């Protein structure tokens, strides 16, 4: 995965927040590589080395550095021994806790309010009111319904137990029972997916959470996936087949292009309409998507998608004699 480093910002607060994590983390993990610290903090290794330099200059008054902490970098590994003042990071700030709580509420599950309470209690006492106020200002999405299933799925992930699920496959319109080793949950384009190894198919696959009808946690425990297996993981397979081409009217284009998605704009007219290409979607998806603009969009190609769209329009029209 290529990931750009966060934009550099020489903010004193940012540095402090980082070192308040770095120090206890390095104490707990003696000899942690600089690279690892950089990855965890989302900054460059150079930045981490600068932070460590900064720490060397810091001391508890009367400012003898060794009074504060003993820190050295050996090769690329960091060793820290220190006064116990900074052996644990500070409590969550209200915005840290609120962001995490908002994310938890959007995922849902029976545990979500327990989790929100625990986060609230981990904020300093006199900041808790601000935490509540801030949390009310973020709504990160409606949870994927079916709380009861989610609790069991989370338990299975945490305990590495297999799951037996009844799953609805939308493209075939049918249900099947699968045994899955649940590796993780992930979110893409507004939907939640369970990603795990499907025993029957012998490979890791995504399952949309709102299409899991039932699930039961098995006694059987599974081996954790290897790092390599995780690194190869994809929610969607690479786009195959020709991309679908759509004509969007001005209104449809304004809505569609502001949404996340892999659009390629082929043409843009003066009134704001557009011709776009979308890779890796089914004919069925293209038809539904075009119709959701109520006449302001149509499927242009490839021929099979155009046919699918035309058939759907004619059949729907037949309902309005």
């Amino acid at each position: 995965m290529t990931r750009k480093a966060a934009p550099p910002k020489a903010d004193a607060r940012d540095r402090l927040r980082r070192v308040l994590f770095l120090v206890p983390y390095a104490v707990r993990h003696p000899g942690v590589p600089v690279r690892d610290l950089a990855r965890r903090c989302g900054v460059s290794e150079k930045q981490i080395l600068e932070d460590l330099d900064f720490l060397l200059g810091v001391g508890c008054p009367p400012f003898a550095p060794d009074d504060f902490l003993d820190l050295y970098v050996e090769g690329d590994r960091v060793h820290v021994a220190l006064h116990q003042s900074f052996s644990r990071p500070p409590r969550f700030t209200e915005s840290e806790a609120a962001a995490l709580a908002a994310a938890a509420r959007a995922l849902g599950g029976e545990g979500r309010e327990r989790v929100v309470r625990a986060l609230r209690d981990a904020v300093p006492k006199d900041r808790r009111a601000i935490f509540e106020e801030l949390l009310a200002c973020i709504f990160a999405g409606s949870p994927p319904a079916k709380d009861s299933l989610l609790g069991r799925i989370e338990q299975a992930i945490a305990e590495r137990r297999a799951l037996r699920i009844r799953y609805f496959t939308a493209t075939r319109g049918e249900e099947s029972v699968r045994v899955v080793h649940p590796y993780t949950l992930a979110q893409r384009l507004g939907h939640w997916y369970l990603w795990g190894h499907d025993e029957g198919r012998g490979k890791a696959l995504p399952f949309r959470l709102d299409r899991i009808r039932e699930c039961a946690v098995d006694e059987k425990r599974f081996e954790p996936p290897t790092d390599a297996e995780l690194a190869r993981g994809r929610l969607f397979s690479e786009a195959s087949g020709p991309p679908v081409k759509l004509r969007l009217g001005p209104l449809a284009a304004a809505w569609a292009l502001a949404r996340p998605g892999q659009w390629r704009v082929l043409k843009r007219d003066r009134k704001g309409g557009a011709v776009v290409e979308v890779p890796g979607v089914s004919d069925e998806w293209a038809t539904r998507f075009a119709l959701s603009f109520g006449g302001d969009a149509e499927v242009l190609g490839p021929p099979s998608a155009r046919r699918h769209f035309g058939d759907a329009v004619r059949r729907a029209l037949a309902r309005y004699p």
Partner: protein
Amino acid sequence: MQKAERLLDLAALLLRASEPVSWREIQEQFPEDYGGSGEAAIRKFERDKAELLELGIPVRWVGGDEDLSAGYLVDKEDFYLPDLKLAPEDLALLYLAGSAALAQRAFPYARDLAHAMNKLSFAARAPGASEVAAVASLQLSADDAEEDARAESSARLEALSAAVAAKKRVHIVYLGAERRARTERDVDPYGLYQRGGAWFLAGFCRLREDIRSFHLGRIVSVEVNPAAPRTPDFTVRKGFSLADLATRESWEFGVHAPVRCRVRLDGPASPEERDTFGPRATWKESDGGVVVEVEAQNQEALLRHVLSLGDRAEILAPRPLREKARKVLAALARRVS
């Protein structure tokens, strides 16, 4: 002394002290920074104290009594991150929700969220499998193809997050969908919500004198009122609920007076299909299918939703909307034939 250094030294001093540290003592320890007797030194210290508080370091003043001298201290109990004492499945929820949110990059308080995720490993016993799952989630949820667009919107989202927290008015340039016109307006930012994978700003629009939602992808620029950063510019109107606004269906945004509409769906409706009509829809079984009834304040939007369900769905009432459906489909049929 540099500010970051001064703040950390101050925190170290107060954390190590077994008794409250007097102002005089603090001045002695930091002669260059808080030296002198003027108001300026006290104001500088108060600003630093406020910053420490925002970093999660609760510095407070205690008045002295017979046993204890007056001064500043950091309550250890209130400083160190406690164990959250969560069951494994609840911990998994936190890890997975946090990682997936982080992977979006565009998430309110995204930087704070990253710090929170780091701290989480100290606040949980044996996160083991959950931590591994979180790394996987982060990777699966990320979308490299959209990286640039997200980096851009995450900067706007960060500015708006800060404005929401501090209740500061923002000046935005907005690209409307309907008229495709650029407008500039002042907005009191009430909150941020996500719907269908996109973020929206909700707030009181001073141009329209009403609560409005703004699609983040169409906010061209954001300027936060720079005056008096710690003083709020507005109070949120009574009765405002972000969740209500965020879960409103497209046909529930008031364009006209409410109209009862009925839609027929053939075959049994799956739970997902039912979800798409929202929590306020009512359902009735009706010979081999279902009839759903909703109150629409924007019938066009309902029409679009029904059309997207294809030939399984049909508008039954009101008659003009049914007629509109026929016209739209007939026009499309002419184009594709």
